[in-house]
């Protein structure tokens, strides 16, 4: 579909022709980092005695790695279903702000809502990072389809990585496995700094990191929530945004 640069934000329909372009975005640094994490996930479920099909099903059904890891480690250790559900839902609270931030960048106001519910299921930290980096150059009606394409392709790739990780589980050198697991936190931290533009962004990274050990000690089950809310709010309050972006 052609688009008219002047009326793009008023149009009420998404341009799904952007979907294949979005799929290409899955083959990026973000995708590579995610692949390493899912390799680790595959190895982990093998370690926990989970069947491969259950592990792969969880990739598409849950699509949030911390939740998947918590789910299988609790079920493997005999936790009840309600207890497991409670802990999984706690790890998933972070998806609320992620979904809000991703949708704010890509949604059209007058369009049908169902594509937003689809994109929400695909949203996690990696997609937030991708959305923060690559959406500005796209016309508004192509953004959501593009991200849906990225999300679906990532989901397919990560299912494959889970299978590979499961099969490689016993054969990876220990230092290499450690490096693979370390890729995700290293990528998240560098992306937070690389995508920071307001002063409160930098402050939020530092406050969140510094508060984390205390939150882990004091509120072991809610540590992310506590350090996220306290650190983020403090950063936002102390370094109130000034609209002129400064690096």
């Amino acid at each position, binding site marked *: 579909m052609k688009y008219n640069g002047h009326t793009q934000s008023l149009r009420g329909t998404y341009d799904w022709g952007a979907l294949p372009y979005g799929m290409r975005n899955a083959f990026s640094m973000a995708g590579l980092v995610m692949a390493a994490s899912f390799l680790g996930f595959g190895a982990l479920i093998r370690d926990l005695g989970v069947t491969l099909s259950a592990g792969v099903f969880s990739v598409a059904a849950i699509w949030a790695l911390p939740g998947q890891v918590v789910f299988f480690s609790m079920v493997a250790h005999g936790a009840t279903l309600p207890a*497991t559900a409670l802990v999984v839902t706690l790890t998933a609270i972070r998806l609320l702000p992620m979904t809000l931030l991703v949708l704010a960048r890509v949604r059209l106001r007058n369009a049908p809502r169902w594509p937003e519910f689809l994109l929400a299921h695909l949203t996690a930290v990696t997609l937030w990072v991708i959305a923060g980096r690559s959406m500005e150059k796209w016309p508004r009606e192509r953004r959501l389809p593009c991200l849906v394409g990225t999300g679906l392709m990532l989901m397919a790739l990560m299912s494959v990585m889970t299978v590979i990780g499961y099969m490689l589980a016993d054969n990876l050198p220990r230092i290499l496995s450690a490096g693979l697991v*370390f890729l995700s936190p290293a990528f998240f931290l560098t992306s937070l700094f690389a995508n920071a533009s307001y002063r409160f962004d930098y402050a939020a990274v530092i406050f969140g990191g510094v508060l984390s050990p205390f939150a882990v000690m004091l509120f072991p089950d809610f540590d992310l929530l506590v350090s996220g809310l306290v650190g983020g709010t403090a950063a936002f309050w102390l370094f109130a945004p000034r609209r002129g972006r400064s690096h």
Partner: protein
Amino acid sequence: MQDLPMWIKIVLAGTVVTYLWRMLGVVLISRLDPQGTMMLWIRAVATALVASLVMRLMILPSQMMSVTTLTNRLSALFIGLVVLFTIRRNTVIAVFSAVLALMLMAWLQQG
């Protein structure tokens, strides 16, 4: 309840309780101004939350990362950030520097 097929357990204690928060996001976004102060505050909270997730992974490492020490992991992250700010905000080079630094430190300690 423990006898349910695994896929039903995954849907009940995984999919439903995870999608809940995503769905809440879709419901709430139509009531928020995407350029407003509220969204900026949410951004600050999300940023601090991911930063503390990173820190938690450093202080409570998974089984696979336990060949490295806390000092190894924190210095590797620091090296990655130094590279990031030295080489024109290139994330790829920064991430790989951090990972290589960690593997090198672990290897030297082992030897």
